[in-house]
């Protein structure tokens, strides 16, 4: 028995390689894990808030009745800087083609996880009312 064995045999080398590969992969994967639920919840709440306030301050109804998107645009442009939003108004029976659409100025539609809320709006004329659907899509502003 004069021959000496190899200290690191091929199978041990492969085992070590596998271990470090799995270790590196799990370190990378777990390091990128983030709590995104908070942003999603806040985005939905912000979208709902914006649509509710637009309805309560009469901007939606005025915009529809006078066919002037500026009522909505003025509000959208005052939203917090980190929040982007697009408001669309649809006729009750036509969700394919919006009657009007307003995008907050300085925002691009480059979102990955937007929050969308629909709400019905009544535009009253005397005792009669026409019904519309207001849709807001909100997303976090991406700089650049």
């Amino acid at each position, binding site marked *: 028995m004069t021959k000496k*064995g190899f*200290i*690191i045999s091929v199978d041990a080398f492969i085992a*070590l390689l596998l*271990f470090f590969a799995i*270790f590196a992969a799990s*370190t990378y994967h*777990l390091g990128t894990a983030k*709590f995104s639920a*908070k942003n999603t*919840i*806040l985005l939905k*709440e*912000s979208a709902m*808030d*914006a649509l*509710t*306030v637009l309805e*309560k*301050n009469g901007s939606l109804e005025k915009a529809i009745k006078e066919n002037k998107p500026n009522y909505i645009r003025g*509000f959208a442009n*005052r*939203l*917090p800087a980190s929040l982007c939003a697009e408001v669309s108004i649809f006729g009750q029976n036509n969700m394919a083609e919006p009657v009007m659409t307003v995008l907050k100025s300085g925002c691009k539609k480059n979102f990955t996880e937007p929050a969308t809320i629909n709400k019905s709006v009544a535009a009253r004329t005397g005792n009669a009312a026409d019904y519309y659907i207001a849709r807001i899509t909100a997303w976090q502003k991406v700089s650049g």
Partner: protein
Amino acid sequence: MLETNTRGQIFSTDLIIAGAVFLLIATMTILYSNQMAQNISATETANAREQAAIAAANSLVYSPGTPGNWENYPEITGVESIGIAKTRNEIDSQKLGRIILLSQTNYTEIKDLLGLSKYGFFVSVQNMQNNQPIYQFGTLPLAEKETSTVNRIATLNGSDIILRVQVYST
């Protein structure tokens, strides 16, 4: 026939290297586990604070409180939950005025009613037109405190406002 007078070597080179590799892997695993445990603990603490801030902001913006006329109570005793909304996203100026007064004298009780007993809070009502604060109550967080901020959009006396709720660990 094997020779019986040859002695085995316990600390042969391959055993030392195997031991070193094992110790390296064990050390890395322990260090990594500790780091992960610390990260998870910090994330859970932050998540709990974020959720408390979201719940407190919801309570303020959506609810009139219980009882609905709590702002007329001379003392905070008897108030079961606190909210400053007249209707959803419409702030009641009387309730707002009352919570501002109460938070100066009954800050701890207000915190408890908002579900923020473990935290400190500061609320500012900002004009959406110019982002200037018009009302504020609570205690400002120190710069080094970890703070969760929630912005809610609402109306107050016909004007659009942003209700900013800051919740921080004490």
